[in-house]
């Protein structure tokens, strides 16, 4: 019995992906999975993610075997063009006239110098939606400053609310500013597509990675400007709830996250931990006194968690209705039964690299579809895109190829 595939929500939307590294390629990744035709412009003369690890062991340096590229460019098309040539830039301009969405995260000003900025392509294609992403955005006095994810962390204020008790500011793990900015970029694209659907009007979107990160810290910004109160770093503690923390378990470098919301939780927590006597301890009587004695409280909790395995701590607390869970390493996510059960872990095969797992969309839909396909080989779609979409004839194509424009 065959079932008609569900319609893809972005079927018919075409995206020109000039993204580098993570932020904008990630933005276009989910668009591709949702049905958009995403064209990645890349060049053999300046490869970035295809030359970056991780590689399939034994295939180091093979541009079709980079996990970095293959996972963030899944379902996309590859068009090789040398944008340092006038003909290459001309082709990108023509592509910009044929797409609905164009995205980039080059350093500020790079596309303008190439004659490919919104000031140019927006005139050629007024219905175009362009999202341009920089660490500090495309306007303001430091728009030209370069910033890696760590700089964005440090500037955005997020580092100021991250750290151990009374300790220095710390930098968040992963490269959160990148995918988070990419996700805001997708939101902007969807909103702009909706607007364009009703008005025909395209537009430019100026996306600053630090502003994406600032959306994580409204409380800190408000407390500072309302009460002149600077953030106090306090580990994993909460200012209203206790216990609230990440505690060590019996095995080395294993941890349990526990958050106790209210007195019902506290009661359940003490019983589950086998420490009913804490209920009679005046220092821990209500949330206010637990917060006042949070050092002693955390030491007591840790005294218990160190005796048990993560699994045991979690099972006991969850059975009692207390929010608790293991601290998972990112490598444990793919093997996590919960993520798997909700369809978040997908396996995508690739002719060079073979099958590999990655995390797909973090949501499910009952009436719309999603499509996970392999990443393109280097230049796999150049011919198709130039002769098909742009209508370049074979003789001209051969000339472009011979001139090195398509490398």
């Amino acid at each position, binding site marked *: 019995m065959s079932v008609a595939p569900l319609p893809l929500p972005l079927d018919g939307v075409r995206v020109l992906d000039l993204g580098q590294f993570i932020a904008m390629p990630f933005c276009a990744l989910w668009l591709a999975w949702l049905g958009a035709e995403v064209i990645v412009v890349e060049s053999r003369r300046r490869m970035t993610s295809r030359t970056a690890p991780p590689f399939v062991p034994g295939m180091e340096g093979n541009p079709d075997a980079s996990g970095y590229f293959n996972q963030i460019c899944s379902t996309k098309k590859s068009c090789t063009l040398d944008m340092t040539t006038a003909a290459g830039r001309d082709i990108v301009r023509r592509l910009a006239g044929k797409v609905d969405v164009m995205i980039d995260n080059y350093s500020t000003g790079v596309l303008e110098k190439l004659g490919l900025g919104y000031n140019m392509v927006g005139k050629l294609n007024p219905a175009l939606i362009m999202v341009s992403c920089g660490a500090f955005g495309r306007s303001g006095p430091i728009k030209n400053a370069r910033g890696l994810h760590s700089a964005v962390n440090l500037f955005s204020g997020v580092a100021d609310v991250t750290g151990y008790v009374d300790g220095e500011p710390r930098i*968040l793990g*992963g490269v959160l500013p990148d995918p988070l900015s990419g996700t805001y970029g997708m939101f902007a694209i969807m909103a702009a597509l909706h607007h364009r659907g009703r008005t025909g009007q395209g537009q430019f979107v100026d996306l600053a990675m630090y502003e*994406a990160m600032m959306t994580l810290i409204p409380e800190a910004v408000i407390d500072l400007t309302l009460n002149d109160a600077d953030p106090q770093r306090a580990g994993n503690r909460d200012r209203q709830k206790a216990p609230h923390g990440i505690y060590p378990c019996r095995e080395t470098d294993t941890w349990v996250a526990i958050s106790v919301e209210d007195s019902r939780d506290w009661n359940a927590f003490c019983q589950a931990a086998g420490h009913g006597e804490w209920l009679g301890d005046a220092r821990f009587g209500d949330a206010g006194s637990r917060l006042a004695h949070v050092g002693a409280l955390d030491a007591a909790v840790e005294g218990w968690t160190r005796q048990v395995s993560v699994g045991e701590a979690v099972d006991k607390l969850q059975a009692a209705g207390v929010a608790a869970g293991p601290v998972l390493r990112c490598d444990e996510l793919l093997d996590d039964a919960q993520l798997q059960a909700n369809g978040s872990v997908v396996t995508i095969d690739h002719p060079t690299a073979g099958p590999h797992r990655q995390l797909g969309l973090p949501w499910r839909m009952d009436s719309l579809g999603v499509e996970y396909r392999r990443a393109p080989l280097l230049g796999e779609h150049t011919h198709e895109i130039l002769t098909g979409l742009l209508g370049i004839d074979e003789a001209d194509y051969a000339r472009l190829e011979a001139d090195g424009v398509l490398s």
Partner: protein
Amino acid sequence: MAIASQMSAAGPLAGLSVVELGDGTAGPYAAKLLGDFGAEVVKVEGPDGVSTRRRGPFPDGRPDPEASGLFLYLNINKRGIVLDIDGQDGQQALDRLLADADVFITNLPAARLQTAGAAPTALRARHPRLIVTTISPFGTDGPWAERRGSELVTYAMGGIAYSTPGMPDAANDLEREPPLHPACFAAETITGLVAGLATLTAVLGRARTNEGCHLEISQQAAVASMQHRDISTYSYWGGTYNRLLNPTTIGRMPNFYLPCKDGYVTIPAPMDLHWERLVEAMGEPAWARTPAFSDGPARTDNWIELRMRLIDWTMTLSGDELYGLANQTQLPIFQFYPVRKLVESEQVRARSSVVDIEIGNRRAQMPGAPFMMHATPWGLRRPAPRLGEHTAAVLGERTGVPA
């Protein structure tokens, strides 16, 4: 809907009608994003109001359900009504609202929705064009479906906590430095963004299919999806992340997070080209030209000494001075900004990255637009509602009875 038409020029989502039954940050943030970009959002609260009314920050720390900073931030650009969804009248009123709405967003527990007659399957059956966006801690299938989640727990199970402190920062002592969660609603905000995005996906999809959709968002999965890059290493060759400061995780050295005279800086100079610029910026110290630091592998082998040498240098300079050197030498050195310095910075002012908000008759500031849409700007159209402020108006509107 008179209000929607008055706002037609106000944002890209003008005309979209959203009902939010949310608590905490995730559900309300999803609806806030839609409202900030023009959708007409009705927020439904129970008679006691949502929990963020009790969260603050409050003026001078004095609790007041109408002056909670987080509540006022999360609920700008919404109208607010009170319904008791445990009672039949409230349930019927909610359903009448949903009959006219495009989108329903909730992060209340499934069991609560069920008893309120608002289970997703029932809503989809009764209102075929309605987009139903539900958020749960772990998703609705699998061993954790019925388990209890929270901001901290979903964040920890989404993988980011373990890798914090993270590159080029790192833990100095695995035992004494637990995985870290930032003191903010990071998991819930990420999830709210994902839920808002998923909702818009279905809005675009509905334009083709003329059919509603149930979007089911797992908070754990939303956080985990942000770990895209780090997961690739495990997927491709089984590599796992180590929190300790060492070249295995940080990569080629120097790539450090270091103290300076008045704060902290990152100094990434992993390639020879960067190293040359750094040595020049330091004024060509003799130690930098010794064999121990002569090439990339040597610098990586001797990273402990290299780190000490660099700290000796950075501690003689302020963050601003180091940043100035970075500009001269094109090195991506960057300094730490406390929230205070950020909010007062020229960049934040020039871009209006923070905007004014009134909290208990006092002026404060909150994060503004997450990105700038040039044709359809983000805008503050109305402050967050007082508890039940628009109950009569909204219910009157929907039933045709003037309020």
